[in-house]
Structure formats: structure tokens, C-alpha cells
């Protein structure tokens, strides 16, 4: 399963990267650097999808009480946080060139940073609780609360005039990009999702291993 995903991901990425670097022309105002959009936007799509899946897994844990959902939620959140880091980093580099500033405290960037901090807090909370059921229960609630911020981040460029560009993708009633420029975003998103799936599978397995270690340790000390 993992190898199938890895193969699909590799193929998608190579095809896309070739297209991004070789075929597409430079953007009129920005030169070559606009191509970062093909990492920046798919990464945020992947990150937000991850956070929403974690929301579902957290809800599933709260409803069923099965710790495997909690393990999955933690894994997905961690991977999504990695992609959120990529979004912030690529955004800052892009902004440094185009706007001349590394950061701006507009609505989108600030709420996105808040999102990052919320889920980093989620991971810190998990580290702070030893008891598995309590850890699962409390972090599930934090995950659910954190998702509300994602809605605000998503809508921020529509509701406010921000330093960050206004909606551009055609699905958001934006001005649209040049011909053939929008499709690679979605293909790259698929590639990133495959990559994220691989990472989540590995991480979930690690969570299960950690729980097995806990129960084995308890068994060993019981003798």
C-alpha cells in the first residue's frame, strides 16, 4: 500500500515539476518566483484537509471511545502541522521578494499563524498528559475548537483587504490565473495528499507502537 502511494506520488510530482519548471511561462509581474504557488497553495490545501480529517477523527473518538481514532487524529494533526509550516515558510520567502517584507500583520497571515499555534498547542498538550484516555479526550476537544479558526483563515481574504492576495483561483470567483496555470495546483495537491497519506500511515503505526510499549511495560511491572 505504502509503495503504491509512494509510486503515485513520485510520478505526479515529477510530471508536475517538469511542467512547472519547463513548460509554463513566467508570470507578467512577478517573474519566475510565482511558481512557488505550486507548493504554497497545495500545501495549505493539504494542511487544512488534514486538520479537518483530524476533527473527524477526534469526533469519532469522542463518540466511540476507541483509542485508534485518537492515534489517527494525533498523526494527521502532526503531518498537517508540517504542511502548515511549509505554507508559512514559502509564503514568507515569496512575500520577501514580492512585497519586500518577510511578514505582515494582516488578517490572513495573523490568523494562519494563530492556526499554527493552536495545533502546536495541541501537540504540546498531548505531551503534557500521560494518561491515554484523558489525553485523547482533552486533545479531541482542542482539535474541535481549533477548527473554527480555519474557517476564519479561509474567509479572511474575502472579508478584508489584506496584504495577502485576494482570491485568484477560479473556484473562488477569483480573477483566475493564466491559461493552464491553475491545473498544476490541483495536481500538486493530489501529490501532496499522497505524500501526507504515507506520513500519516507511518505516524499512526508509531502511535500504536507507543501504546503497545505502554501496555507491555505495565505487564512487565505487574509481575
Amino acid at each position, binding site marked *: 500500500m505504502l509503495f503504491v502511494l509512494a509510486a503515485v506520488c513520485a510520478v505526479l510530482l515529477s510530471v508536475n515539476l517538469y511542467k512547472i519548471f519547463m513548460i509554463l511561462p513566467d508570470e507578467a509581474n512577478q*517573474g519566475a*518566483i510565482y511558481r512557488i504557488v505550486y*507548493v504554497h497553495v497545495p500545501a495549505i490545501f493539504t494542511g487544512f484537509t488534514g486538520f479537518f480529517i483530524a476533527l473527524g477523527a477526534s469526533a469519532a473518538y469522542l463518540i466511540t471511545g476507541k483509542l485508534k481514532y485518537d492515534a489517527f487524529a494525533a498523526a494527521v494533526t502532526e503531518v498537517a502541522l508540517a504542511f502548515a509550516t*511549509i505554507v508559512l515558510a514559502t509564503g514568507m520567502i515569496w512575500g*520577501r521578494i514580492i512585497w519586500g517584507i518577510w511578514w505582515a500583520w494582516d488578517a490572513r497571515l495573523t490568523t494562519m499563524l494563530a492556526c499554527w499555534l493552536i495545533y502546536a498547542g495541541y501537540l504540546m498538550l498531548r505531551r503534557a498528559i500521560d494518561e491515554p484516555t484523558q489525553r485523547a479526550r482533552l486533545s479531541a476537544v482542542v482539535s474541535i475548537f481549533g477548527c473554527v479558526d480555519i474557517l476564519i483563515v479561509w474567509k479572511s481574504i474575502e472579508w478584508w483587504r489584506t496584504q495577502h492576495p485576494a482570491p485568484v483561483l477560479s473556484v473562488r470567483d477569483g480573477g483566475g490565473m493564466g491559461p493552464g496555470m491553475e491545473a498544476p495546483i490541483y495536481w500538486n495537491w493530489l501529490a501532496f495528499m499522497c505524500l501526507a497519506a504515507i*506520513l500519516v500511515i*507511518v*505516524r499512526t503505526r*508509531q502511535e500504536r507502537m507507543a501504546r503497545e510499549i505502554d501496555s507491555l511495560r505495565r505487564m512487565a511491572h505487574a509481575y
Partner: protein
Amino acid sequence: MIDARNFTYMFYGFAAAFVILVVYVVSLALREHKLRSEIDRVRRMVEQSEKKI
């Protein structure tokens, strides 16, 4: 000096994304290694305790 097509910074951007991913994958691999050795150690501990009984 910024070249007219901003190529250098584009590569910095892609490199940043790549580096973050690599760092995360490496951290996963390290954690995997730590977990596997820990699980082997604890399994051996359980077997030893069972043998004593």
C-alpha cells in the same frame, strides 16, 4: 541583486519546503528507530519476567 526573473529566490522557496519535509521525515525515522528499540527492550523484559514465574 535580484535577477529579473527572481530565479534564486524561487529555488530558496522550493528548497525551504523540501528542507521542512526532509526534517519531518528524518524526525519520523528517528522516532521509529527509538520506538522499535524500546519495544524490543520491553518485550524482552516481559519474557524475562514470565520466565521467572
